[in-house]
């Protein structure tokens, strides 16, 4: 083995220029791949953090996964009946306080009640359909970042005005509303409510900032025409990644539909999967391409060293031992290239993190978020080393298969 290493090292070190080109190829591939991985995962994590910060981690609603069967259907299952009016069911979660109490006893986080309904906001001739969520400001701080998202006014101000509402920044701009303005809210049952804007928030998610209005629970219940109802429980967990598991348990316990943030954003998350797939393919192609320089070098060396291969085999060295010489040469080129590639990758990531971009959602200029992970370095390095070994294997196999007599005859 020492002999093989010795020969390999001699071959590589006596071809400085070629070796450096090969190493540079590997370094570029590794460096840029690490940079892409850092950028991609960084932006993804940044986006998810925003998503998780803005939304409740789990929303429990007074719905069932499937529509309950009607009494008539239960009674006369064999008979086909159409136009059966569903039995009126009082909306809302039954005994919300006791449900919340029992949830609080085991979920890793907190829970707050809310009343969710739809309404039309009427201001200056514009009518826009919005989602109205009635909240309890004291308990709301446990489950959302609304208090920190306030751009104008405070969350507690809701209780100070009669029928106070907090609206999203995008909606305020659209309607030209400022804190202190009055608007008319029209509910589904025709209820009309004069409200006062007591605050403006910005979540950074456009669809929330355009459509969401918060009020106290009372006004929301009035708009619904259901006094005392609570039709939504919102949970915030200490670890958002547990949401799917906890949501399933909550649903099993309460019977109400519990939606984790992952389920609510399944469309976005699946587009991430597609993006991951594309980027991984590109990264793999980069690593593979970067090993072509190695293939070239090993091909050249094995060609130049035909006589050496012949003599080593004729002296009695095994074919695999001779082959290993060239694979070790590729590994030397690969390993040094990977080390420089790691450095290059780190420097590229560092450079990118100094670049700031304008974020249209938050209206601020923020640096590109880069995710630094040792896993990137290890995985990219390992794949690159495999590519180099593979790139060496084929020319080495071809060269060492040659029968020594053919070359010795050819030489004499």
């Amino acid at each position, binding site marked *: 083995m020492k002999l093989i290493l010795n020969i390999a090292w001699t071959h590589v070190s006596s071809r400085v220029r070629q070796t450096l080109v090969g190493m540079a190829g590997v370094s570029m591939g590794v460096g840029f791949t690490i940079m892409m991985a850092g950028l991609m995962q960084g932006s993804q994590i940044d986006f998810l953090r925003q998503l998780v910060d803005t939304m409740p981690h789990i929303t429990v609603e007074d719905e069932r996964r499937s529509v309950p069967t009607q009494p008539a259907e239960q009674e006369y299952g064999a008979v086909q009946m159409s136009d059966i009016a569903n039995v009126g069911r009082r909306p809302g979660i039954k005994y919300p306080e006791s449900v919340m109490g029992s949830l609080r006893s085991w979920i890793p986080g907190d829970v707050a009640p809310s009343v969710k309904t739809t309404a039309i906001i009427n201001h200056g001739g514009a009518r826009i359909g919005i989602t109205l969520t009635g909240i309890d400001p004291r308990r709301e701080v446990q489950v959302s970042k609304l208090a920190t998202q306030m751009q104008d006014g405070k969350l507690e101000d809701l209780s100070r005005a009669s029928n106070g509402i907090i609206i999203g920044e995008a909606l305020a701009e659209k309607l030209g509303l400022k804190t202190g303005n009055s608007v008319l809210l029209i509910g589904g049952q025709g209820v009309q409510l004069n409200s006062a804007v007591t605050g403006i928030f910005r979540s950074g998610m456009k669809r929330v900032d355009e459509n969401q209005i918060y009020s106290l629970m009372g006004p929301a219940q009035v708009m619904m025409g259901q006094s005392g109802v609570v039709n939504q429980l919102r949970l915030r967990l200490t670890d958002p990644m547990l949401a799917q598991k906890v949501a399933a348990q909550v649903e099993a316990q309460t019977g109400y539909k519990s939606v984790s943030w992952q389920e609510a954003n399944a469309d976005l998350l699946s587009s991430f999967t597609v993006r991951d797939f594309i980027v991984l393919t590109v990264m793999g192609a980069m690593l593979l391409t970067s090993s072509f320089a190695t293939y070239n070098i090993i091909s050249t060396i094995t060609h130049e060293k035909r006589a*050496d291969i012949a003599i080593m085999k004729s002296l009695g060295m*095994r074919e695999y031992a001779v082959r290993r010489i060239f694979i070790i040469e590729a590994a030397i080129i690969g390993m040094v290239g990977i080390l420089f590639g790691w450095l290059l990758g780190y420097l590229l990531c560092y450079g990118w993190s100094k670049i700031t971009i304008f974020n249209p959602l938050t209206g601020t200029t923020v640096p590109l978020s880069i995710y630094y992970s040792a896993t990137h370095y290890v995985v990219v390095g390992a794949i690159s080393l495999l590519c180099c070994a593979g790139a060496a294997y084929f020319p080495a196999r071809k060269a060492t298969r040659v029968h020594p*007599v053919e070359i*010795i005859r050819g030489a004499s």
Partner: protein
Amino acid sequence: MTEIALQAVELVRRIEGTVSHTLVNGIDLAVKKGEFVAITGPSGSGKSSLLYLLGLLDAPNEGEVIICGQPTSTLSESDRADVRLTKCGFVFQFHFLLPEFTSLDNVLLPMRAAGKMSEPEMRERGLALLESLGLAEHANKRPNQLSGGQRQRVAIARALSNRPEIIVADEPTGALDTASTEQVFSILRDIADQGQTVVVVTHDPALAARADRRIHIVDGKIAEITAHGGGAAVCEAVS
């Protein structure tokens, strides 16, 4: 009866192709331990092919090569490589030294490949071999710093390094001047006198005359066997 070091039985080597060509056509031969045999013949007579078969570099289509009593026709390619490594030493017309390595490293190559000795032992033996061939001061030079005769002597030292029973040389003096030719031949002669078996293919009738026995090959067959040297070795046909 003296021990037989190398024996060929009914050796046949053909090149299969659109036109099949028989290189070696049924050769029987036995070489005793310590014997110096020269194989001669016109170009294309099959003498080199026979040598490659005897040195296990090539495998016969038919027949058997027995090295130190061990038949080799059933050995796998890697077992044949092992036999070459430990029992045969090769010298070719061109030295085939590894150009990036010093003379000493080239001589150490087969020992390192066999891996049976410690590094200091190998170095000691390598230096002793080079010294015995008059190359002590060239141990740390590379092949391109040596003359043709010196390179060929390094190649002989390499062939001897694993103490093989048999030295197989294919036109070892073919590319050398007269003085170097004389030197190389007397070294081979000494090796045989010290008890190792030497088989040499040569064009040079004068050199062949100095061998214990001369085997003349024509068209892949033994045409003539001539014994020399006052009965030091007696022809033993084994058919």
